């Protein structure tokens, strides 16, 4: 496992980290976001989507109720939320595996709930509270990941 840690001191900085990360992303990438309620998973996703060229007029909102939001950025972005998915079986039953596509970037919130459904190429991002506004953001990927430089800014 290769790991890099970053610290942000505001929601804006978290968004900016997302924009930076997006510059390294390519089609087929899957990002697993882990962290408590209010950690900033949707916030980081907003940054990633902007960084991937999504126009500012399109709001990037929480997919908790909709399960999947789809955005038309430079490439398709699927924004999935497993908050309400109770088992791996339901992940497949709901057809969510169909959004792990080679021609899109897929971002999955509450991914730690069902880590077994994620492909090997997944980048893991864990956000923890470091204070009122501070967040510790740990990005990690497998040793065999095709582009280790992706997580080093």
């Amino acid at each position: 496992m290769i790991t890099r840690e970053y610290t942000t001191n505001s929601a804006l900085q978290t968004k900016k980290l997302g924009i930076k990360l997006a510059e390294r992303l390519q089609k087929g990438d899957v990002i697993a976001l882990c962290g408590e309620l209010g950690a900033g998973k949707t916030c980081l996703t907003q940054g990633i989507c902007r960084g991937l060229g999504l126009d500012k007029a399109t709001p990037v909102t929480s997919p908790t109720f909709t399960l999947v939001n789809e955005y038309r950025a430079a490439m398709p972005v699927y924004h999935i939320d497993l908050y309400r998915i109770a088992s791996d079986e339901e992940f497949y039953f709901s057809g969510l595996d169909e959004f792990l596509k080679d021609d899109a970037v897929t971002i999955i919130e509450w991914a730690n709930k069902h880590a077994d459904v994620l492909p090997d190429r997944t980048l893991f991002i864990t956000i923890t509270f470091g204070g009122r506004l501070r967040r510790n953001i740990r990005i990690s990927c497998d040793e065999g990941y095709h582009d280790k430089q992706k997580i080093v800014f």
Partner: protein
Amino acid sequence: MNILAIETSCDETSAAVCRDGYEILSNVIASQDDIHAHYGGVVPELAARRHIEIIGQVANKALEQASAGFEDMDILAVTQGPGLIGSLIVGISYMQGVSYRYGIPMVGINHIEGHLTAPLLGNQQVCYPVLGLIVSGGHTMLVKMDDVGKYTVIGRTLDDAAGEAFDKVATMMGLGYPGGPLVSKLAQKGDPNAIRFPRGLLRSQSFDFSFSGLKTAVLYKLKSESHPIPEQRQADIAASFEEAVADALVKKTLRAAKQYGIKTITAGGGVIRNARLRTRLEKQCCKHGYRLVLPEPILCTDNAGMIGTLAYYYRDRAMLAKDNAIDPIPSLKFVG
């Protein structure tokens, strides 16, 4: 014209018989809240499975209450989206079967449009334009309505929907599911001014909403309290949270009505059942001279009655299932 309607976009399995775009003869709703309470949210597979089990009974009950049979129906109306794919499929497939069997044309209806128009249709006193506020678990938006089918979205949430904030705050406070009613119940005993929680984007000129910051503020408040938090303090936190949501929704709605010169305001969606929000809307509309048209509580819930009344206005689009299959569209856009 008799219309049989089915709504299965999320939790509720509902069937209704409606007449001529204003009369709801029956409106049967079977809720899955008891099943989902165990899981702390809507569980898609369970939702779909339960819809399959009971949809036939629910439809028959709706027909029975309206003293009618399938052969008396002129049109079939079904929710096409937005919603959970597995749940939408059940309602649509059921209606396709009925369409084949009885040769009745069917039409797909937008769930959000159903909520928006529910209190307006059949109300002779309503003059367009109307400003509509939709607040539910998955949606929060302000819509300028110039007529049935002519809408402009002028504001929406930029992160969490208001109902989602209620559910997540309920989870943080360990209250269970469905979160909205449980937070409201706790809030009744609390002081809404005990804590000043942030009102997202209230100072912004736009009519967009944000509830993510409020959710996080409640989380920090809960963490900063000494545990176990006394019941009165919990009630104060719940009431103050509710107050922040209501304040943001009501102020923006009135500001939008003023800017667009709209005299009639309506609101729909599950969160509109919230007593504090309803009271605040009523008071403020009265104070500033706006006419407020609110749906009865049953029409705030996901229900087929609103789908069946609206379908009358789209009756020209109805087609036999064998001629044109209706596909479920989970992210069906609200047509502007």
